[in-house]
């Protein structure tokens, strides 16, 4: 039996299909995962993401600690209430985890880390925080709900105390508002607008039921995966891990090389990789045939060099298979993917595939043939 979130019994009572995810018993779907996917693209859905780790760091050295630990630079979070996405790197530039860092006030930060990496992250950050005199608290007392979709924010606002509703609805993307033990953030993992809500574990079930009562659909990890793939968002453990670095994972934009004198863990290794050049490409693929790309399938580029699919699925919005792949250096617009013993043509595209309910790439074009 795995670890359970405060909403576990509610999921089971709702008929959810439960699976192991990073050591946690989590709902994969409550019925049709494709219908859950469409609910988020068209209206609103709620996900239990309480399995993710919430780590608070506070004290005079917190800002300096994070400037040294994260590849992105929390100094960019000039005002309180802002958030940024970053990788946590080892000395070799390998990715220990990806996370969101919230800055509430001077030297008062919160990290949201992956469920499967939280113990590793705590072992990495804990001693460094202690050495810097920074207070670290893992907030196991909190639950976290992601409410996503074009109608999501209005539904969340209905749950908030009247005094904070206007401020919550005025939050720009990647901003957060903390009130008491609650925190509402305009962040997510679906490519849609929405809020992530951190709240006391004891209040989670009532919030979930209130959202359901307003028509917000319960959504599982199955829909979460197809939504994040369409949105072009990486999944730790699939798309990157300790053997890959951000510059070959589509995450160069998250590495703050400026200012040049900020010495973060992994910086030297990334600079060396950049100097060597000829980096592997991290790209999106659209399969031109009716089949589904899956992780670890081989990808062949012109000349016979090979790469690999890191994440792949069927896109409910595009009605065809999409994937992320890591490829040898080059610029070919067409590749072939080995799907169940056959080499099928796929088109290389820019991320994202879908954003705010709208397809940004076309599905199966029908006209494409490999030589």
């Amino acid at each position: 039996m795995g670890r359970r979130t405060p909403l576990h019994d509610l999921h089971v009572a709702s008929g959810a299909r439960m699976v192991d995810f990073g050591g946690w018993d989590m709902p994969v779907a409550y019925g049709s995962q494709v219908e859950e996917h469409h609910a988020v693209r068209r209206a609103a859905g709620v996900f239990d993401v309480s399995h993710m780790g919430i780590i608070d760091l506070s004290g005079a050295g917190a800002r300096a600690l994070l400037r040294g630990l994260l590849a992105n630079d929390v100094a960019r979070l000039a005002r309180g209430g802002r958030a940024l996405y970053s990788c946590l790197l080892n000395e070799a530039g390998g990715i220990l985890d990806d996370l969101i860092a919230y800055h509430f006030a001077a030297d008062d930060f919160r990290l949201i880390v992956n469920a499967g990496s939280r113990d590793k992250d705590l072992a990495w950050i804990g001693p460094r925080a202690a050495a810097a005199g920074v207070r670290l608290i893992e907030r196991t007392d909190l639950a976290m709900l992601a409410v996503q979709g074009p109608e999501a924010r209005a539904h969340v606002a209905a749950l908030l105390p009247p005094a904070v509703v206007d401020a919550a609805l005025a939050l720009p993307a990647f901003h957060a508002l903390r009130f008491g033990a609650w925190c509402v953030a305009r962040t997510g993992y679906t490519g849609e607008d929405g809020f992530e809500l951190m709240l006391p574990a004891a209040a989670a079930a009532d919030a979930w039921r209130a959202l359901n009562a307003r028509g917000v659909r319960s959504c599982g990890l199955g829909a979460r995966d197809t939504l994040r793939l369409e949105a072009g968002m990486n999944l730790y453990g699939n798309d990157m891990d300790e053997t890959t670095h951000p510059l070959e994972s589509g995450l160069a934009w998250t590495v703050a090389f400026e200012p040049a004198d900020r010495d973060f863990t992994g910086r030297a290794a990334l600079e060396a990789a950049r100097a060597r050049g000829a980096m592997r490409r991290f790209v999106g693929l659209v399969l031109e045939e009716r089949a589904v790309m899956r992780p670890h399938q081989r990808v062949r580029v012109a000349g016979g060099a090979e790469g690999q699919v890191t994440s792949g699925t069927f896109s409910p919005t595009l009605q065809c298979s999409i994937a992320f792949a890591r490829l040898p250096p080059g610029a070919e617009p067409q590749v072939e993917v080995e799907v169940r013993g056959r080499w099928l043509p796929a088109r290389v595209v820019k991320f994202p595939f879908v954003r705010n309910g709208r397809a940004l790439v076309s599905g199966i074009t029908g006209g494409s043939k490999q030589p």
Partner: protein
Amino acid sequence: MSAIPPELHYARSHEWVRPLADGNVEVGISDHAQQALGDLVFVELPEIGRTLAAGEACAVVESVKAASDVYSPLAGTVVAVNAQLAAAPELVNQQPYGQGWLLRLRPASPLAEAGLLDARAYAAIASGS
């Protein structure tokens, strides 16, 4: 809980068989199987006229999660396939024993000799897996 109609025959590999009035049989996958697969997105069916051995892989059902082979529950010749599934694979999820049927076979030998399970015996397998 999954539905297991008492009038059908079942294979251990989760296909069902329905005898038709013309002596042919209809084949599909069980409610238990479609639940385990999740939302189907593609269904590959055999060509009409193909001869199948019992236990031979004859179709592929692919869901958002995974692709799975479907095995012919008995020997026979394919006389029809469900063309609706090309555009609407979700019929297998919605009506696994009705509009979600996969193919029809002319059996090579009497159904009673195929060694299939009745609903009660299949229920024991479905609840144990």
